[in-house]
């Protein structure tokens, strides 16, 4: 079965949590309701956003991938990646930014195919507010996946031209 955009986001984020930081994750059975990801996460949530530009199947394809994770997930990401007992705030933001970077690269190569060429901007990370990972709700041209992760929750949102996917919303 080919992945829908939401399934692609969920499976990519799940495998990245596991391989980058040995964290177990799975798609949330009951995604939180609300206008934005930040509203459903705790006060210490961390977000990151990676903008991209490029071409896929001959058409321009620019957009962004945003990640928002609860405070416990940000801490676990940084601490497992670094192998330390207590990561600081800068390390947590950096770890979430790198997580977003890896997820974005894999989602784009999966959706756009091996011939697609994208350039990813450096991740912008900070509190999970509107400007980074927890902004507007998914809508036209945006897809979102929620995950339950050890220590909390995570939300991944892709903003991209619909042409990146086929007519049924699947990555070709």
């Amino acid at each position, binding site marked *: 079965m080919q992945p829908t955009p939401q399934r692609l986001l969920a499976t990519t984020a799940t*495998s*990245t949590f596991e*391989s*980058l930081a040995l964290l177990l994750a799975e798609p949330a059975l009951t995604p939180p309701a609300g206008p934005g990801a930040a509203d459903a996460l705790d006060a210490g949530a961390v977000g990151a956003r990676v903008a991209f530009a490029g071409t896929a199947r001959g058409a321009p394809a620019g957009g962004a991938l945003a990640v928002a994770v609860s405070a416990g997930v940000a801490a676990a990401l*940084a601490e497992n*990646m*670094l*192998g330390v007992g207590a990561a600081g705030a*800068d*390390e947590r933001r*950096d*770890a979430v*930014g*790198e997580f977003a*970077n*890896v997820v*974005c*690269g*894999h989602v*784009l*190569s*999966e959706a*756009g195919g*091996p*011939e*697609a*060429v*994208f*350039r*990813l*901007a*450096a*991740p912008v990370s900070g509190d999970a507010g509107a400007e980074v990972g927890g902004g507007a709700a998914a809508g036209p041209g945006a897809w979102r996946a929620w995950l339950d992760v050890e220590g909390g929750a995570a939300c991944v949102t892709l903003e991209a031209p619909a042409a990146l996917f086929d007519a049924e919303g699947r990555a070709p």
Partner: protein
Amino acid sequence: MAFNVLIVDDSAVMRAMIARVVRLSGLPIAAIHEAGDGAAGLAAAREHWVDLVLLDVNMPVMDGEEMLRRLRAAPETADVPVVVVSTEGSEARRHALEALGALFIRKPFKPEGLRDVIVRAAGVTPDSPPHAAHAAAAPGDDGDLDF
């Protein structure tokens, strides 16, 4: 004789993660230098003797592909082994990097996968000296390291 390694990545957490794998690789390590972008990486490569470069692609100021081209263009760094550690999924860009003599491993990597490609790029077994067999690192042969 021990290796001097240069890690170039805009993420401090990723640099630390790679440095951990390098230290656990079994290779004798003299020093690990770090830089946060390609321009700083070039400066570090000119300032220090470097036996191996581990290089990200998407970075601010100067990306990894440009840094790799400049390394190859300078006689003193033209032959230094380079491993690209990146999320890059484009075959065209990957082939361009491999044409410049770099090996490639995709993020997220498994520690043993990165260790293996580091050993291959350095062209040595953990007990032999650096620069022993740089030519043995065949561009385009990634040893099934895609995850």
